[in-house]
């Protein structure tokens, strides 16, 4: 978070959508999302493993946002 600050212009685009604690504690949920592994397979499903290619994954962010919304509604 010291590098990805407002001043550096590399700030998280979700800054205004999500609370500060969610943002600072859950970077990897969006930027290193967990995908089913092709090699670690339990039954028919691949075990979820976080990718190490840090990047912007818009679809995964949408999933997380939907999840948070659902949680709030509960």
């Amino acid at each position: 978070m010291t590098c990805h600050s407002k001043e550096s212009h590399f700030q998280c685009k979700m800054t205004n959508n999500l609370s500060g604690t969610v943002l600072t504690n859950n970077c990897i949920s969006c930027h290193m999302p967990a995908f089913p592994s092709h090699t670690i397979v339990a039954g028919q499903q691949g075990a979820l493993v976080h990718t190490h290619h840090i990047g912007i994954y818009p679809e995964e962010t949408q999933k997380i946002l939907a999840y948070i919304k659902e949680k709030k509604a509960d």
Partner: protein
Amino acid sequence: MIKPKALRFLVFLIPFPLVLMQCLTGSKQSADPRGPLYAGSVSCAACHKNDYNSYLHTAHFVASRPATDSLVQGSFDKGLSEFIFNPHAKVIMTKTDSGMYQTSYVNGRPELARRFDVIFGGVKGQTYAYWLANELFQLPISYVSNKHSWINSPGYDSTRAVFERAVNTRCLDCHMSYAKQEAPELPNFYSGIEGFEKTSLVFSVDCERCHGPAARHVKFQTDNPTEKKAKFIVTFNSLTREQKINMCAVCHSGSASPIIKPTFGFKPGDTLSKFIVINSNPVNINYKFLMYTAIKRRYWKAVNALSIPAWIALPAIIPTLTTAINLRCMRQNV
């Protein structure tokens, strides 16, 4: 042609290395298989108790351990101790007096039983290895924590129990702290098969993997208990940024790079390129694809910002993007 006089001189020199070896190993047997420069994690715990106790909860500590009942996370209970490949092939995990075993069955008949000798991991999952002569092999069944279940070991044939994957120095380099190589005892059909001296194994990724050999530090601080300034140990802060990254990258930079020599001997401050071949990773398709979408977005942003007409922007997109991606791949060595 060696002159007789010189030969006599050489013969005279022979006892010297022997005497030196005696000094190093003879009188006081070094407790650590890595040699007298290493103190072993237990000596660190004597003073750095809190750090050591918190280290016991890390993935580094559970990277490898000798197999004991309580450490295997998978279930040995009836009904949960089987891994079924298909109606004809299965593996059953059992506990006996001589240890825990994985036994493969074909059409109900036991085929091969191998013992859990070494456990690798314990955070996200575990895999296991067995000894055959002085060689280590991966057992057919592993365990994955978030599914709480036994699984076929990663990459193994999904239709039958496989026992054949050799565990070599490249594996142990990051899952252990030391393993002394020796000539393989089994008849080998492939090149690159390695044997290990069983008593030489130092389990876990231990303190001295990252902090460097510490015997001298331990001796100095023990002899001078009032001296609170750390001597003869490299502090992480004293390293340059590149040295710090090198230290972690020994293991945390993917496993595709072949090793030049075992990285057990890598000390803080060393140069990684002397141990592993850097930049040998094949191009990662996912990563290229990600880069493509990111660059495409930027491309259209630039087109809009500079109000470039579509008849130039459209045909120019492919060559521009390809060049940009290749340049970036080259710069980032992927």
